[in-house]
């Protein structure tokens, strides 16, 4: 790599890290998204566990039902909290400053990293609680981590792009779930299938490949479309 190219790459990486750090710093001041995500997932978890209880689902149906419920909780928690990263920029009118300060692809990557880390934090708290409260026995813990990581990454990438769209429209946060659900459905189906595989201890490789492909497709589409959505 030539010297100017290397310095450009370093500057771009610096911008990504700066956006990521800025988002976390702003988040830790109000903890708005963090609280929304955590409380939303906890209240839904409580609803699920009081409605069904650990014994409410018969053992033969557990593999089918429980992973689906887990991902539905995660999806709704993400829809409640993740659009915050862009809605906040529009509400405080800092979006213009951000447009001037960083290249669009760096903003997209930084925000995606922020969403992914936020979601990972929530998964870290929610999933052990879910497993304990629903008495779900996991055959392959590594498989579960892979399913949660790849599913969460896809959720973060898609949410970042869609939040950038929703934040610039009226209705903002309320618009986000309407826009996101049809696009997230394939991801959700794949993630549920992979989680089922982890619970049973048989990882379906084809599903994992499809999930990775979905994440990669979303990342490429995001990098191409985000500058068009972000720049006037």
């Amino acid at each position, binding site marked *: 790599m030539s010297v100017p190219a290397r310095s450009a790459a370093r500057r771009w990486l610096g911008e990504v890290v700066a956006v990521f750090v800025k988002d976390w710093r702003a988040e830790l001041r109000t903890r708005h998204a963090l609280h929304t995500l955590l409380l939303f997932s906890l209240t839904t978890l409580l609803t699920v566990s009081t409605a069904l209880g650990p014994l409410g689902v018969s053992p033969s149906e557990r593999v089918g039902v429980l992973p689906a419920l887990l991902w539905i909780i995660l999806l709704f928690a993400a829809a409640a909290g993740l659009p915050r990263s862009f809605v906040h920029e529009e509400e405080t009118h800092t979006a213009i400053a951000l447009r001037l300060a960083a290249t669009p692809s760096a903003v997209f990557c930084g925000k995606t990293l922020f969403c992914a880390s936020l979601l990972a934090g929530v998964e870290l708290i929610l999933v052990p609680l879910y497993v304990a409260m629903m008495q779900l026995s996991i055959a392959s813990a590594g498989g579960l981590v892979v399913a949660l990581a790849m599913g969460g990454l896809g959720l973060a990438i898609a949410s970042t*792009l869609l939040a950038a*769209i929703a934040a*610039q*429209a009226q*209705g903002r946060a309320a618009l986000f779930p309407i826009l996101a659900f*049809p*696009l997230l*459905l394939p991801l959700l189906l794949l993630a549920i299938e992979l989680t089922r595989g982890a619970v049973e201890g048989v990882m379906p490789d084809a599903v994992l490949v499809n999930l990775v492909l979905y994440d990669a497709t979303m990342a490429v*589409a995001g990098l191409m479309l985000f500058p068009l*959505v972000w720049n006037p």
Partner: protein
Amino acid sequence: MNPGPASALAPAVDTRPPSAIWRALGWLLWLWIALAIVGAFLWAPLAQAFIGQSSRILFFHVPMAWASFVAFLAAGVWSVLYLVRRDADHDRAAAAAVELGLLFAILATVTGSMWAKVMWHAWWNGDPRQTSIVVALVFYAAYLVLRGAVEDPELRGRLCAAYAVLGLVVAPYLYFVAPRMASFTLHPQPVVNTAAKVDVEIRMLTVLLASSLGFTALFFWVHRLRLRLLRIDARKNTRT
């Protein structure tokens, strides 16, 4: 008429009424579709293994689904064109195509559901094809909600076009992944199937193709009307 600064910004669009040739083509289209309807009920034979006359829905249900597919594809193409050229007319064309595609998709869903009630004894079966068309319905309905939620035409065009393109990107996963997830499908094999074999009686095939062509032409014809209406609206708004 005074061409002020507003009309200088908006490029001139053609809002003239359709020419005599177009009107004649419109009448020809009516005749064509009427013939297809007559053919569907009187000329084409019934398919085997279908309850009663239910196989005749083929000549309407399949063309509707096809027309909605053409409409959504056209909307995708116009959205890409808008993102490249930033011509407001491409944005209007995409919006009109989505509206019509949604209409055809609703018709296809309803007719399919009626047929499912006859053949499968249930309005809704969770069949992969039912799932994928309903997700398409929700997606394009969300597209229209997004259009309604943005005031500025330029921003609306950009956001909606990006959303439509994203839909095109995800569509293959919906078509290939969702059916794979289901363990079975009851839906009859598409006429143009993976085996590249057409196993339909020749009269049925003729009516089906004629009807599909008619519905596709109907889409483009109504699209022309709708686009003209949207152009007139846009011109009216720039004048005031």
